[in-house]
């Protein structure tokens, strides 16, 4: 299980580094978008590897299922707990115990820092989808600490 710890530590350092170089508290937006862009590139590379052996996807839903099951398992060692969609291009992926938040206090204490911890993963999902030919906007929200929701908005071309 050493590889998981490595990723988590690296991710934490990444947050700290980006936060420091981007000017700290008041530059939160830039910090988040920088992390998101890093995730985007990583997601593109990862999806190229993960889909090497899989059959071609039928449609958008098929792609989203792949993200929820295989992609999430490879990165976070668990599947997405709940996938919902309105069948009009909006998907909500709910993870009840998101790995990158599981080390933080479950109370409300660090709630304001949560967006930083999710930015990289948003990029990861967006990059993965982009490489599979689905352009999207991915946002995340946390209401109770280790649980979070990722909202994927597909942009029609």
């Amino acid at each position, binding site marked *: 299980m050493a590889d998981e710890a490595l990723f988590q530590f690296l991710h934490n350092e990444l947050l700290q580094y980006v936060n420091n170089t981007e000017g700290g508290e008041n530059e939160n937006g830039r910090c988040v978008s920088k992390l998101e862009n890093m995730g985007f*590139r990583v997601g*593109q*590379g990862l*999806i*190229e*590897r993960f*889909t*090497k052996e*899989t*059959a*071609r*996807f*039928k449609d958008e839903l098929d792609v989203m299922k792949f993200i929820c099951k295989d992609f999430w398992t490879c990165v976070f060692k668990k599947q997405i707990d709940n996938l919902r969609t309105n069948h009009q291009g909006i998907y909500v992926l709910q993870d009840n115990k998101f790995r990158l938040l599981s080390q933080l206090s479950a109370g409300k204490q660090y709630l304001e820092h949560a967006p930083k911890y999710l930015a990289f993963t948003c990029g990861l999902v967006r990059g993965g989808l982009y*490489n*599979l*030919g689905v352009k999207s906007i991915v946002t995340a929200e946390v209401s109770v600490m280790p649980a979070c929701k990722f909202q994927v908005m597909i942009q029609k071309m």
Partner: protein
Amino acid sequence: MAVCVAVIAKENYPLYIRSVPTQNELKFHYTVHTSLDVVEEKISAVGKAMADQRELYLGLLYPTEDYKVYGYVTNSKVKFVIVVDSSNTSLRDNEIRSMFRKLHNSFTDVMCNPFYNPGDPIQSKVFDSTVSAMMVPSC
């Protein structure tokens, strides 16, 4: 074996193309370009009728008098095209398949290189040597 190997991006522009008789390079560019229509056709056909046939390897795209053109599409819609000499009848389907698999593996490595920008022409030496191994020794 192969006389021309090409990698085509999602948006249908070449990422990498290399052929063996270098004086005929333009002809191979045309050949590869023409084959993209057949690739497109095969992919869209999969969506409708042949739901079970969803393999990445597309098989023989079309034969011409001198060459046979084979195709392969990754899940990220990057196309690989291999052109082989028709006179080479000993070449089995399985060998073509394994050539594509090698090509795909090598391409994945290129994609995972953090210094490579997705969508740029491929300039990796490792990729180059993988392709060279698949080509006929140039005379």
